[in-house]
């Protein structure tokens, strides 16, 4: 009899704790958090070294592996910008004097990225961008090189 009473109270307590834990977790996750992104401006080339006078560093091996679909042998990081986007809103990032990225947080891990060149919309991409994946707007540059704007989600 006592055992059954105890079990009954224990069951109620377990349900309560579970509900509190799950509810708390859901509230915490639901809370609007800024999404952190990073964009790297990358120069793709077959040259072994960056241009004279530039101290561009080679990109890390992981990124280089992710860029394996491209034909170039070496990738140098020109610039790196970390930025955050408030949940559900948009952030515009200038990656160069005449090139901007507009990153908008959609539901889940989906984002909408708009690339502007000289103030005009050049491309608009809407897709999932979970951690670990990259979105790479890019194009050919003179002398068989290319420019890449590697966008990744950090958190």
């Amino acid at each position, binding site marked *: 009899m006592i055992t059954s009473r105890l079990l009954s109270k224990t069951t109620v307590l377990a349900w309560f704790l579970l509900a509190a834990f799950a509810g708390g977790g859901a509230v915490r996750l639901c809370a609007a958090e800024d999404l952190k992104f990073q964009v790297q401006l990358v120069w793709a080339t077959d040259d072994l070294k960056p241009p004279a006078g530039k101290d561009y560093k080679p990109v890390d091996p992981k990124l280089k592996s992710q860029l394996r679909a491209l034909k170039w042998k070496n990738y140098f990081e*020109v610039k790196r910008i970390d930025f955050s986007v408030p949940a559900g809103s948009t952030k515009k990032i200038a990656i160069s004097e*005449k090139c901007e990225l507009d990153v908008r947080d959609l539901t889940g891990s989906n984002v909408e990225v708009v690339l502007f060149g000289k103030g005009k919309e050049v491309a608009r*991409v809407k*897709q999932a961008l*979970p951690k670990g994946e990259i979105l790479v707007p890019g194009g050919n540059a003179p002398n068989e090189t290319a420019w890449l704007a590697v966008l990744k989600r950090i958190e």
Partner: protein
Amino acid sequence: MMDYQHQLKIQAYLDGELSGPEAKEVSDWLTGQPDAAALMTELRQTGEALTGFEEGLKLPESREFFWSKVSRGIQIQENRARADAQAAPVGWLIRFRRFLMPAAGVAVISLLALVVTRETGGGPSNPAVETSLADGGGVVYHDFSAGATFVWLSYPPDSDSSEEDDAGSLDQ
């Protein structure tokens, strides 16, 4: 015309349910009431006729055993109800638990859905992708194994400054 009470008295008299004085009183009254006497005769004959048709109902077990089974059944039910009442938590706790069960279920499902959505990026790594390129020569390529999406533009974003710096047509 005889009233209903007198009719009942006659029936009780026939059934032997009246006490001595009452029975005598009814008997005396019947002698002076031919209608009542006729009714009594009719009731007696009807009763005798029906008695002949009654089937004797016999229990397969003795009367004492039958009623002892009923008694034991009642006792068991009472004991069970008492035990349940002692084991059961108080009323508000039951109501609270009824609320908690679905609430906890919903919370767990929400938590799992949110965790999956947040941590894995919402299921498939590349769900529906919408792309629009102002550049007619642009190409979109997904390298699923590398987790990379390339948006390749034939349009050079800063071609006018590229002569100064190959890599940094975008460099400031």
